[in-house]
């Protein structure tokens, strides 16, 4: 006898504890097994690209804060680099050092968030999340010290940064740098050897290098699949070519690799911040530029290795004070292309971990 069965369709999100914002997945289940997935976007669409066409070049910086609200500094940096490329200028060296330092601190904070939520999705009741938030708090304190805000930093400006480092910053940074390696070790000891975690993540959510490249995946998800591609190494911008660091590469492209790779990237970022602090040159932190910028007509593409992948700004200028077109290449959005192929065949519980391991930020997806 055969029973007539049909798949059960569940709407996961837009309000669901582990969709990290307002993401919606229409999932068809056969029992616990995912048959088909359709992502639905747009719940957080604010039209940033259109708004940017109505703002001056400096005002757009405030919009970039709100793209990836977990890593605003790198969004600032990508945009500012694009404008600088458009104008054919370069920030003074001290400004570049400060920018890189902030970007790397931001990377640590963003990866901490990812690790915390990834483990939370896996069911570790809040503990890793609390630990990672505790450390992220220190980083946000540093940001507040430097620019007066914790999340919506609006710190970087075309031709440098808004303000020089305050005198109390260096001791606070030293305290932080002394503390953070031990805390990363704690985090690793807490869970990465855990048998349950290994059972949940090893060989789950495999993404082959071929599929990752063809699906335009960038960032840690690409590197976890074994592709050695980090813009900081392969196309160094600002002062990355003067710094020493390694780019960790995964082997299998499974959840475990994506998780451990981020732990390792955090260690490398700590190394970079330490080098920046030691090599920090004197001099101006910012070019003297007029308040209203008028870049020459033309187009430019500026990109950085954001915590989530390659974040790029494609700016077209018509010579006026506002960008003619500001297209954003957001890594979170494009990384979701491969989500469907990664999910089908896995179970409901794997769905949240695979989605979490891609580290997607809805502010950046919907823009």
């Amino acid at each position, binding site marked *: 006898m055969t029973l007539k069965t049909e798949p059960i369709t569940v709407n996961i999100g837009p309000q669901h504890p582990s969709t990290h914002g307002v993401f919606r997945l229409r999932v068809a289940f056969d029992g616990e097994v995912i048959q088909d997935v359709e992502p639905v*976007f*747009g719940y957080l*669409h604010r*039209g940033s*690209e*259109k708004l940017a066409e*109505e703002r001056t070049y400096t005002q757009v910086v405030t919009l970039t804060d709100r793209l990836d609200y977990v890593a605003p500094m790198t969004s600032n940096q990508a945009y500012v680099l694009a404008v600088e490329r458009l104008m054919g200028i370069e920030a003074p060296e001290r400004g570049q050092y400060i920018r890189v330092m902030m970007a790397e601190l931001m990377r640590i904070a963003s990866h901490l968030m990812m690790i915390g939520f990834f483990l939370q999705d896996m069911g570790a009741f809040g503990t890793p999340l609390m630990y990672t938030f505790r450390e992220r708090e220190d980083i946000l304190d540093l940001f507040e010290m430097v620019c007066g805000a914790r999340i919506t930093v609006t710190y970087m400006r075309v031709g440098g940064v808004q303000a020089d480092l305050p005198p109390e910053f260096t001791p606070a940074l030293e305290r932080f740098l002394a503390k953070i390696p031990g805390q990363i070790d704690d985090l690793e000891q807490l869970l990465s050897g855990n048998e349950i975690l290994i059972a949940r993540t090893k060989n789950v959510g495999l993404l082959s290098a071929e*599929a990752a*490249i*063809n*699906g*335009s*995946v*960038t960032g840690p998800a690409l590197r976890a699949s074994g*592709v*050695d*591609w980090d813009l900081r190494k*392969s*196309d*160094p911008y600002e002062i990355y070519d003067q710094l020493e660091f390694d780019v960790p590469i995964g082997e299998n492209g499974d959840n475990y690799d994506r998780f451990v790779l981020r732990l390792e990237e955090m260690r490398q970022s700590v190394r970079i911040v330490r080098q920046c602090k030691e090599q920090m040159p004197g001099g101006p932190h910012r070019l003297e530029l007029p308040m209203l910028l008028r870049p020459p007509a033309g*187009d430019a*593409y500026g990109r950085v290795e954001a915590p989530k992948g*390659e974040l*790029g700004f*494609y700016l*077209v200028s018509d010579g006026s004070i506002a960008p*003619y*077109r500001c*297209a954003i*290449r957001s890594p979170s*959005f*494009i990384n*979701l*292309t*491969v989500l469907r192929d990664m999910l089908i065949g896995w179970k409901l519980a794997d769905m949240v971990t695979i989605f979490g391991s891609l580290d997607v930020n809805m502010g950046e997806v*919907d*823009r």
Partner: protein
Amino acid sequence: MTRRYPADDLAGKIRTRFPDAVADTAPAELYLERDRLRDVCEFLRDDEALDFRALVALNAVDYVDYFEVVYRLVSYRHNHATVLKVRVYERDEPSVPSVTSVWKGAELQEREVYDLMGVGFEGHPNLKRVFLWEGFEGHPLRRDFLLQRP
């Protein structure tokens, strides 16, 4: 450092295979004819020396007279990059061939361009709005889209 693949060199290579595919060249960019786009893209992806296996970004710009669709390609193996541009001179129903069959990464980006800029992609498996809802009138990133309707 990612090397910009010289556009003249690239145009020459493409012309040997597809004589009428390249419309124009700029120092760092290549303007392609709309109709041969998919063939050229397949060639760029599969050629061993070029190896543009990753489509990094796909954007569109509205220059009022024409739409320009911009493709950014990177080869991870050779660490070089290039930019392809395609111009569409229609306004009512502009469209270019979809490159989803060449790079899967184009899928969502083409949907986004269609949604916000209104450039259609022939051959896209699922061309519908991404961010805005079905039934939204107009395409907001066009220059003639008014933010506040009268």
